[in-house]
């Protein structure tokens, strides 16, 4: 009679209690339960929800760790205390000092995101009397990666409650949601507390509290600078690629996102169709805008000139379109399910992202809005793809009969 058996007996004894799902959640987190699925199961597959989610989390961990170092690096770089790192393995990047800042600032974000989110899940599981769902595992990891480093923790907590309840639980919980919960959380923060989510101060730790003092430092993202038509002398494209630039915690390193994306494709967790088509869509829109500038329709005096004249391929590395394409758009619940639908869905995400980025300087980071919009349209796309298929086969059938 080990601990596991005792816990199981405890569970059987209390099977009518209201709080049992809460206990079950902890129990199955530690042990495999002593029982199997009741009733008829239809799908027999080795990869369950937990494995899927764990794989995504594994793909996110490099971004998180990089984000911690980058938090400190950007802070000290803005203060002028260290030299630029010059490349991914630069000496002034992977330092203990940088990591300390990262740990102090990023770990609380992770803790709040998971603590609050799982608490909401527990409460709903107990109210509804079902098992606690794993759905929050990935969301909880994504949320700290897509917010600015200095976001107050209580705001994050409020947003997480909103995102999990309104974005997911009201629709019936994990697997039923229309909108990506992590992006719902970001959208809530963005519209509720815009001063903490956009602008030129929030992206580097310490920039907000120093604003207006002689010690003020710039905390602007490159994208923000482009949107304001600020000239960007001396920006190194390799820095953008490696991720040594200010931005949300985990989205800056394009290199690590690509590695994570390849990992997801290799493990067949993420859809390569969505990732590829998103990038194609973004490049297409970028090319169109470049064409407009080349044709001379938009002059330098236009407020769109800054972002429109960016060479089309740079759109992939200056914002978070890659992060969105790899980790957000591919969310299997909210994306299109059909293969043809995935191409359309991804292409429109990329296309609309760049459109929002260029046409609305107030929202230079339009990726999350584009993904949320396409989340809403994903079922419609699927519907027409399936109907198109049905029609084609009906025609074939008729031809055969006739």
């Amino acid at each position, binding site marked *: 009679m080990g601990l596991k058996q005792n816990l199981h007996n405890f569970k059987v004894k209390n099977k009518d209690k209201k709080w049992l799902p809460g206990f079950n959640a902890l129990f199955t987190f530690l042990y495999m339960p002593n029982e199997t699925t009741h009733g008829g199961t239809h799908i027999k597959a080795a990869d369950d929800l937990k494995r899927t989610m764990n794989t995504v989390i594994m793909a996110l961990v490099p971004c998180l760790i990089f984000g911690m170092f980058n938090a400190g690096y950007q802070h000290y770089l803005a203060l002028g205390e260290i030299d630029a790192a010059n490349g991914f393995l630069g000496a002034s990047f992977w330092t203990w000092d940088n990591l300390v800042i990262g740990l102090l600032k990023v770990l609380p974000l992770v803790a709040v995101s998971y603590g609050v989110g799982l608490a909401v899940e527990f409460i709903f599981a107990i109210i509804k009397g079902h098992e606690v769902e794993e759905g929050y595992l990935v969301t909880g990891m994504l949320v700290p990666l897509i917010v600015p480093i200095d976001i107050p923790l209580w705001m994050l907590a409020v947003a997480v409650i909103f995102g999990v309840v*309104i974005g997911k639980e*009201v629709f019936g919980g994990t697997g039923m949601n229309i909108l990506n919960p992590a992006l719902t959380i970001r959208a809530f923060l963005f519209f*509720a507390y815009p001063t903490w989510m956009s602008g030129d101060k929030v992206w580097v730790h310490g920039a907000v509290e120093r604003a207006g003092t002689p010690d003020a430092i710039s905390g602007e993202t490159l994208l923000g600078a482009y949107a304001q038509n600020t000239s960007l002398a001396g920006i190194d494209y390799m820095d953008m690629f490696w991720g040594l630039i200010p931005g949300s915690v985990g989205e800056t390193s394009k290199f690590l996102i690509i590695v994570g994306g390849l990992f997801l494709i290799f493990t067949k967790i993420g859809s390569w169709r969505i990732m590829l088509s998103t990038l194609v869509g973004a490049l297409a829109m970028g090319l169109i805008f470049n064409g407009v500038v080349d044709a001379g329709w938009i002059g330098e005096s236009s407020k769109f000139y800054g972002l429109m004249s960016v060479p089309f391929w740079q759109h992939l590395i200056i914002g978070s379109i890659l992060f969105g394409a790899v980790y957000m758009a591919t969310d299997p619940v909210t994306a299109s399910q059909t293969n043809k639908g995935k191409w359309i869905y991804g292409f429109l995400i990329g296309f609309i992202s760049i459109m929002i980025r260029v046409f609305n300087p107030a929202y230079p980071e339009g990726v999350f809005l584009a993904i949320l919009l396409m989340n809403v349209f994903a079922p419609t796309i699927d519907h027409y793809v399936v109907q198109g298929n049905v029609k084609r086969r009906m025609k074939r059938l008729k031809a055969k009969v006739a």
Partner: protein
Amino acid sequence: MGLLSKKDAALITDPLADNNPITIQVLGICSALAITAQLKASIVMAISVLFVMGVGNVVISAIRNIIPSKIRIIVQLTVVAALVIIVDQVLKAFAYELSKELSVFVGLIITNCIIMGRFEAFALGNGLWRSFLDGIGNALGYGIILIIVGFFRELLGSGTLLGIPVLGDPIAKTGLYSIGYENNGFMLLSPMALIVVGIIIWVQRSRNKALIED
């Protein structure tokens, strides 16, 4: 209820909860989203609709037997439009700032589906007294949701109630603001009004399961 018979009382109480025009019939949503960012505007809107519906229902009920049924919609529109113009003029005369804030939404009371709906569904087939009660009841049901939504939106969005700061001063950082609290700008946007209405619907239906339809 000495004043009203049980049946008449139901005309007032039903729309307040179990047959609420906003949360059950989901009518009149547009104005509920547009003007509830401030509690004061919500209250004025509620009172305006109360007046228009109470009087309008009585007028329609009074002339219900002489309205040719082919042109009844035009007649109803004329009655609503006349009443709304009265409300609009009164607001402009005595509460100019507020009428500017409500802008076109006072005029748009004309198109409020609750009003036309009650004219069509009730006043055309019932007597004066019952029509009056029905109008008042539905307007109250509409108004109570408006005021609830307005209360939360103004409190959380601006930190004020009826324009009076209740959570402290956001610029001087007093009260709640001194510990880092900030107003929720999302509350002032219309989508959040829809979500607040949705939450009210959710709460109401989980308290009264009979209201859940498949």
